[in-house]
C-alpha cells in the first residue's frame, strides 16, 4: 500500500481530491490535516469529515492552523459557496475530528513512515511550514510532496501574478519550497481550458448515477458558475483533483523539470508569485520540480474511474 497524507483547506475541489485518494485501492491515507484557506479551518474540517464518511472510511481528520503565519486569512466563499461546498449545506458527519493537533500528528506520521510517505497539499502551506519549524528532520523523510499551488507561467487567479494557495500564505510557501522536501508544484495553469469538464462531460458524469459523481458535481455548483462568470472559463475546473491525479499516477504529468523556484513575499503587485528560474539565470541550485504539462485525457479518465 502506498502511504499518503493530505493537507487541505477542504472546500469543493479539495473534497473531490480527497474522494479520489480514499477510493484508490492501493493507497492508504494515513491522515487528513485541515488548514485555513478557502474556508475557516472549522468549516474545512466539517467538509473533510463529511467527505471521508461519504467514502465509507474512518480516516482521521485533524485540525491545523486557523491563520496564515503572518497574514490575515482571506476566504474564498465567492468561489466555493458559503459552506465551501456549493451551498449544499451537507449535514454534519458522525465522524468527529481526531483529538491530536494536525501539525503534531503529521510530524509523527512522517517519522513513523520515514521514506515511505507521500504528501499532497491542496491549500495554503501553513501547516507544513509550522511542522518544518518544529521538526526540520521531516523534510528528508517525505518521499514526495505534490503541491496544488503556484502559477509557473505567472497567470494568477487571486491576483495577476499569484495563485490563491501560495498568495494566502507566501511565507509558508517559501519555507516549504526551500526546505529540501522533494516537491512537484502543480500550478493553476493545469486546471483551465481542456482540462476542465465540459457540459457534455458533466452530463456523462451525472449518468454514472453514483453518489460520488453526484457529489463531485453538486459540491462544485458555485465553482462552476463562478468559473464561467468570473474567469470566462467553460465547465468545471478542478485544481486539487488534478494534483491528486498526478500524485496517484505520476505519469499523468508528462513534462516536468527541476528549477530554482522562489516565492515573492514582499512585492507590492506580486505577493505570492512563484518565480521559476527556468533558464537558470540566478545560478542557484534547483529546489523543487515544476509540472509543465499533464495528460488531460488520462487525468479525466482517472477521475471518471474513481467516481463510478
Amino acid at each position, binding site marked *: 500500500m502506498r502511504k499518503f497524507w493530505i493537507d487541505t483547506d477542504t472546500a469543493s475541489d479539495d473534497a473531490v481530491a480527497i474522494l479520489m485518494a480514499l477510493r484508490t485501492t492501493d493507497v492508504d491515507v494515513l491522515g487528513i490535516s485541515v488548514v485555513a484557506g478557502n474556508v475557516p479551518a472549522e468549516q474545512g474540517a466539517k467538509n473533510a469529515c463529511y467527505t471521508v464518511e461519504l467514502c465509507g472510511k474512518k480516516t482521521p481528520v485533524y485540525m491545523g*492552523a486557523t491563520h496564515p*503565519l503572518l497574514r490575515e486569512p482571506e476566504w474564498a466563499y465567492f468561489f466555493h459557496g458559503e459552506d465551501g461546498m456549493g451551498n449544499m449545506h451537507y449535514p454534519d458527519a458522525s465522524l468527529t475530528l481526531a483529538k491530536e493537533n494536525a501539525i503534531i500528528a503529521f510530524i509523527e506520521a512522517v517519522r513513523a513512515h520515514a521514506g515511505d510517505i507521500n504528501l499532497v497539499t491542496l491549500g495554503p502551506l501553513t501547516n507544513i511550514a509550522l511542522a518544518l*519549524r*518544529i521538526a526540520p528532520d521531516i523534510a528528508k523523510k517525505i518521499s514526495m510532496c505534490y503541491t496544488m499551488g503556484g502559477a509557473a507561467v505567472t497567470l494568477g487567479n487571486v491576483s495577476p501574478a499569484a495563485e490563491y494557495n501560495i498568495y494566502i500564505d507566501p511565507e509558508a510557501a517559501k519555507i516549504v519550497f526551500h526546505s529540501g522536501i522533494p516537491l512537484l508544484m502543480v500550478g493553476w495553469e493545469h486546471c483551465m481550458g481542456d482540462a476542465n469538464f465540459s457540459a457534455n462531460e458533466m452530463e456523462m458524469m451525472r449518468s454514472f448515477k453514483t453518489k460520488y459523481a453526484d457529489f463531485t458535481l453538486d459540491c462544485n455548483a458555485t465553482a462552476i458558475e463562478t468559473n464561467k462568470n468570473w474567469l470566462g472559463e467553460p465547465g468545471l475546473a478542478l485544481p486539487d483533483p488534478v494534483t491528486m491525479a498526478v500524485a496517484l499516477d505520476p505519469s499523468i504529468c508528462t513534462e516536468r523539470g527541476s528549477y530554482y523556484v522562489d516565492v515573492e513575499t514582499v512585492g507590492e503587485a506580486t505577493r505570492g508569485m512563484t518565480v521559476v528560474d527556468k533558464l537558470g539565470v540566478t545560478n542557484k541550485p534547483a529546489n523543487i520540480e515544476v509540472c509543465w504539462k499533464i495528460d488531460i485525457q488520462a487525468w479525466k479518465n482517472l477521475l471518471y474511474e474513481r467516481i463510478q
Partner: protein
Amino acid sequence: MSQKIIIDTDPGIDDTIAIMTALRSPELEVLGLTSIFGNATTEITTQNALRLVELEGHDSIPVARGCDVPLVMELESIASDVHGRDGMGNTNLPAPKGKTIDKSAVEFIIDTVHACPGEVTLIPVGPLTNIAVALKTDPSIANLIKKIVLMGGAVSVPGNISPVAEANIYHDAHAADIVMQASCPVVMVGLDVTEQVIMTPQFFDELFKAGNPATNLIRRILPVYQDYHDRFLGMGGSIHTHDPSAIAYLINPDLFTTKSVPVFVETERRCKGKTTADWHHQWEKRVETEVCLEVNSSGVLDLIKERLTK
C-alpha cells in the same frame, strides 16, 4: 502556592543567572526548560540548558529542544563576542550527562499548557520563535496560558543590538509581533528596566563569597559578558541585568511599575525588531501588553543575591 513556569531560554550568561535564581526560588515551580537560538545556536543552548538543570541536582526537570531558525526571517549570524562561542563565556564546560526529552519545545509547551490549563506561565528570555510557533500550531493554548513574561524589547530607550532594537526581539521580529497579539496576558520586561538594574563588581564580590555551584559557575562564565559591556558601553566591569529581571518580576512584581499599551514590532529593514508602544491608540486596535517602565533596582538586586547566596 508556587507558580508553574516554563523558561524558554538561550543560555547564555545572563540566562544562567536567571535560571539558577528561578531554580532556587520556592515561589516558582520550573516545569521545564525549552531551548532556542539567540546567544548561541539552538544546538549549543540546548546543551547549556541541560548543564544548568544538572548543576544543582535539578536533573528531573525536562529540557526540550526548540526551533533552529526563526519563524520566517533568516537566522542572523550569532555574535560570539557577547556570550562566548559556547554561550558560556568560552569556558568549554564538560558535556552534560542528561538528554533532552523526545518532544520538541513547541510540543512540550502545547502539551504542558493543556495539562495544566490556566496555570502555566511562560518565561521567554530569548527570541520568541518557540512561543510563536506554539501559538500558531495550536491557537487554543492562547486562552489556556496563564501569562507570558518575556525579556525583550525597548519602548522608551534605545536598542542594544541595533540603535532601535533589543536583541531577543530582533532575532525573530515576526515571532515577537505574534506574541504581542496573543490573547493571554503578556508582560514585557525590556531594556526600559533591565538597563536600570546594574550588577557591579562589588555585587559580584558579595555574590561569589557564597561559593556554591551556582555562584561558582557564574564567576567562571562572567568575564566575557563583563568585557562586552565594557567594550560596548564602557561599564568597567558592571553589567545590565536582562534575563534575571524577568525572574525577579515573577517573584515580586511589586518591584516594577508597569503600564498597559499596545506594542507593535517592526519586521522590516533598518528598524527591524523595534518595539513601539502606541500610547495614544493611533494605530490599529491591538491587545495591550503590560510594559515594565520603572524598577526598584536595588530591590531586584537584593532579591537575586538573596536567592543565589542562601
